[in-house]
């Protein structure tokens, strides 16, 4: 106990207590929350539940009423969420980007902290604050029966609008100052749709009025086709472009051929005497 008491005036002690409190509240909530989804809940209930979750998990950065928090320097500590819509919440929380571990310009995806129902409750609450893009209907991102024509069109849209950041094969790419565009391969179609719709983090918005829901559907169909098609030429070596290929040419090609040259020039064991 001496360890703790000697540090209670530490500058971070207060923060730690608050965090422990938050965790305790969260844990007790998750212990007591209804185990089965109640389909009959009406919107008001959902919004209220979302509000509760919001206050506990999000308000510290985004403000108690989602009005955002501005730092003394004038930066957004957490941006205002009024009008971002349910789609943004579904993307950010559903992919685990929110809640963020720390405020940063690049917030990576991780294992989601909230379950599906909690996400929809949070989304309902944020959507209730102001009009914004809604979570898309499944028909727009369900690409299981996309036609060949749609995939080809999606490919052209992808190469025109997406490949510049996310790379020709969807394996992501570099942005200024250590930021990056994440890979889009293996991402759930709904999240790809929502990302285009809402423009999370540094990604620009591709609104439904310009890149129509049909266009987005086709882009998703193209990305999906990349996931299902084989690497016809063998291992894709990370799809990092010619720099990656050059590295493998040196490592595998020149490496093995130099080893072969060493073997060829070595004249092997001798009988009788050991090698001097």
């Amino acid at each position: 106990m001496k360890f703790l008491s000697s540090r209670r005036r530490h500058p971070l002690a207060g923060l730690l207590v608050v965090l422990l409190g938050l965790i305790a509240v969260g844990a007790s909530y998750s212990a007591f929350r209804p185990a089965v989804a109640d389909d009959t809940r009406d919107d008001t209930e959902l919004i209220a539940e979302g509000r509760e979750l919001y206050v506990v998990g999000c308000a510290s950065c985004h403000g108690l009423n989602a009005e955002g928090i501005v730092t003394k320097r004038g930066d957004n500590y957490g941006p205002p969420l009024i009008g971002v819509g349910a789609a943004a919440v579904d993307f950010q929380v559903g992919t685990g980007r929110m809640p963020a571990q720390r405020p940063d310009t690049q917030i990576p995806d991780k294992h989601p902290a909230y379950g599906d129902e909690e996400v929809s409750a949070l989304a309902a609450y944020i959507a209730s604050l102001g009009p914004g893009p809604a979570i898309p209907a499944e028909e727009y991102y369900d690409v299981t029966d996309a036609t060949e024509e749609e995939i080809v069109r999606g490919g052209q849209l992808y190469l025109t609008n997406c490949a510049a950041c996310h790379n020709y094969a969807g394996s992501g790419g570099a942005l200024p100052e250590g930021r990056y565009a994440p890979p889009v391969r293996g991402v759930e179609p709904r999240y790809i749709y929502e990302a285009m719709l809402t423009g999370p983090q540094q990604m620009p918005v591709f609104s439904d009025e310009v890149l129509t829901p049909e266009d987005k559907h086709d882009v998703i169909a193209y990305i999906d086709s990349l996931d299902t098609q084989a690497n016809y030429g063998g291992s894709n070596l990370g799809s990092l472009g010619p720099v990656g290929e050059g590295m493998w040419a040196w490592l595998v090609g020149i490496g093995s051929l130099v080893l072969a040259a060493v073997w060829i020039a070595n004249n092997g064991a001798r009988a009788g005497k050991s090698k001097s």
Partner: protein
Amino acid sequence: MSPDKFHDPDFERHKAGKDNPEDYGHDLDRAPDSDPDAEPIPNPGLPEHTPRPTDVDERLERRAERQVAMLFLAAGLLSVLFCVAYFVFEPGIEGETFVGMGASNASLGLTLGLAMLLIGIGAIQWARKLMGDHELIEYRHGAPSSAEDREEALAAFRAGSRESGFGRRKLIRNSMLGSLALLGLPAVVLLRDLGPLPGRKLEHTVWKRGVRVVNDVTALPLRPEDLRIGQLVNAEPASFFEHEGPDGETVPAEYEGTELIIEKGKAAVIVVRMSPEEITPVSGRENWGIDGIVCYSKICTHVGCPISLWEQQTRLLLCPCHQSTFDLTDGARVTFGPAARALPQLPLMVDEEGYIVAMSDFEEPVGPSYWERG
């Protein structure tokens, strides 16, 4: 078998010194073999030959022989397998896959590659284990010809030169050299039709007053209210696509084929929307945007890559080729990287039907700098 089985007459010849360097009396410039007296350790000479296990043990020799033959046989088998794979597996998207790879390509590469490798390994193993193992000595000759040869060659040249009168008959010589030099002209002139002269072609694009700005690929015309803050549109002039004319009629695409690609390489633009208050308009361009919507050339001013990596929070536009970075809130000023000039801005306005159109062509040439650009 004794190690002597590879009796080599040449080797003996070298040993007997028949081919010794004195035979070539013309290598004066060669770095000498070190003076034995000046060297701390005398040259011990070529070490005595030690036989290999396969030279002294018949059992090992036969084993090596079998090993090499097996390698060759396995290579032959793989060649047959290559043919089997060729006919069994379909190429392309209809074909089978093998751990995520195209089965046709992988199996052909594997069988061909292994067949080749085994032949190579067999041949080298043969050389290392079974072929003659005595190192031979060959003496060098100096690179130059002998002094006599050189003298004779020069004499021959002088004789030829004298008989031709090349040095003496200056009129003939100079007129011939002159005529040969002038032959360069036809050679150069012939290449004139490789391409047209540049003229002012690099200074203009197909943008002109009233051309609608449409979304690339889908040709959808844009209205200001369609764009949200933080939106990026990769756009083209409507004349690249089948589009709606001024009276609502359908106008076919005005450019196609090569011409379309050439014009696209100059006219491609990006349209973005930011909040009007964060934009610092360049003086004289205050009315070039529409309520925070601005349009810039998509062709980098460095060496011409299309740029559309726009970070919507920092408002920075990055070129994926050489990382030039442009600040779109500040007239596309260069903030980092090798590009020396801001991206040209396309002035925008709204037509009667509420669609975004160009106010004019770019006021400066788009794309990389060039000498006459000024």
